[in-house]
């Protein structure tokens, strides 16, 4: 690392930033193949003093369901899941998420795996954190080609949940459901607003004059210690390669 820069990895910044979004939650669910969200959830659990429970899909040790695949969705329908992470092949400025493919459906150009549970959980879970490391115009598009799950719903549609925030490798944007728009909340150290704008395919709001955009706060030493110690250790069960790339706790 260059002299003078704080001693943490960019991914540790993301883990700490997303954990701060879970300070009210009692139960957070992390999907499969989501090591950074899983680390954020485990960190928040560690810092919560027993308030937060974490369910990690694909991880037998951090699993709380015993009645088949449907139980996750039944629990969400009953309000038993407070927070969930969702990603997208495309995400647009209205927080619509596309997990199906690009092009003119059904004549698609590039096929993605599919919508998984997004078309339900996005509506039901109050605090959905959108997370996609890649911050490019390829991913953050003016309008998604296929809506797996919409960012907002018209009045009269039952929708206790929805997106609260979008976290990427460049910035954090909070979502205003009433306006149906993102607002730049902070830019990560080493990046700036111009870079965020240049790499975002949709319009978003920012501070007047574009001058005072805060930097995403660096993780505190105790947070870094938790990531590098207990979080890293638990994570290694499910994501051994990811955990091995995180710094180790100081001896």
């Amino acid at each position, binding site marked *: 690392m260059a002299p003078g820069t704080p001693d943490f990895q960019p991914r540790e910044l993301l883990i700490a930033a997303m954990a701060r979004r879970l300070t009210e939650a009692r139960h957070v669910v992390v999907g*499969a193949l989501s090591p950074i969200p899983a680390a954020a959830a485990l960190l928040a659990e560690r810092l919560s003093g027993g308030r937060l429970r974490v369910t990690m899909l694909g991880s037998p040790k951090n699993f709380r369901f015993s*009645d*088949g*695949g*449907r139980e996750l969705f039944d629990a969400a329908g009953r309000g038993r899941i407070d927070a969930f992470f969702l990603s997208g092949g495309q995400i647009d400025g209205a927080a619509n998420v596309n997990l199906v493919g690009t092009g003119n459906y059904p004549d698609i150009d*590039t096929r993605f795996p599919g919508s998984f549970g997004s*078309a339900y959980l996005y509506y039901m879970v109050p605090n959905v954190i959108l997370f996609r490391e890649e911050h490019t115009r390829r991913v953050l598009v003016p309008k998604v080609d296929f809506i797996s799950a919409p960012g907002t719903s*018209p009045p009269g549609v*039952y929708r206790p949940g929805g997106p609260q925030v979008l976290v990427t490798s460049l910035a954090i944007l909070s979502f205003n459901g009433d306006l149906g728009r993102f607002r730049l909340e902070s830019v990560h150290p080493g990046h700036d607003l111009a870079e965020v704008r240049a790499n975002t395919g949709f319009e978003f709001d920012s501070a007047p004059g574009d001058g005072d955009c805060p930097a995403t706060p660096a993780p505190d030493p105790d947070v870094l210690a938790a990531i590098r110690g207990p979080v890293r250790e638990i994570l290694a069960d499910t994501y051994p390669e990811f955990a091995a790339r995180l710094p180790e706790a100081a001896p």
Partner: protein
Amino acid sequence: MARREILLTVEELVARIPDGASVISAADNNGVPMAAARALVRRGVRDLRLIGGPTAGLMADLLIGAGCADSIETAAVTLGEFGLAPRFRAAAESGALKIKDSTCPAIHAALQAAEKGNPFAPLRGLIGSDILRYRDDWKVIDNPFAEQDGAAAGDPIVLLPAIVPDFALFHAPYGDARGNVWIGVRRELMTMAHAAHATLVTVEEIFDGDLMADPAMAPGTVPDLYVDGVALAPNGSWPLGLIGRYPVDATHLRDYVAAAATEPGFRAYLDRHVFGAATAAAE
């Protein structure tokens, strides 16, 4: 009337699945019958209508690539950490495969309707998604109980027709001679068995006794009432894993993804691992 034989070979088991049948199976690593899938490819089955349970993976990719499938209804097709399913992706992008895009809870709910004999199930969410927009078999009604529940007037909700698969086909740790099958905590397999017209299972071991007689085993057991055939297939989920028994064969999966990136590469994979003499002897 004499009962049909329950204990079968894998080849006899899949012989019960005719061309054109609808088949639901498990999501990767939760009981995917890969030995049976290879036997289906060897038999040259055609026009299967695959259903993800609620997602699909390697088994679907193999059947699609081998020309065994006409359509798939699923919430996703994925090889998980190994990436996109290459033959599914190629068939989707060329338009060769009919795809009914769904979402996990819709498949769960439609199977639950089927296990009750109900014609449909309601489900929240979905409204405003393109999944709903392109599903002309799904309907939206106004909640008929809205006023007495204090909900807003209107309160639209989606209705999903029941999914009644011709066959549920999966792999499990144990079956017994009566046809009881132990699935443990993988209870989505129970729902599939209840919903399907017939259930065919490959198992790691034949259990010496009655799985329903032990109160610790019975809650994780699909009773013989639902099961139409059981075939012994040790390591029957390979190269996928079976939770609690063996892990995924990661080297093989990476080799598969590399080979199946092209049609000739996929054919070579089939020749070696599905039609190959060594494979046939092992199974």
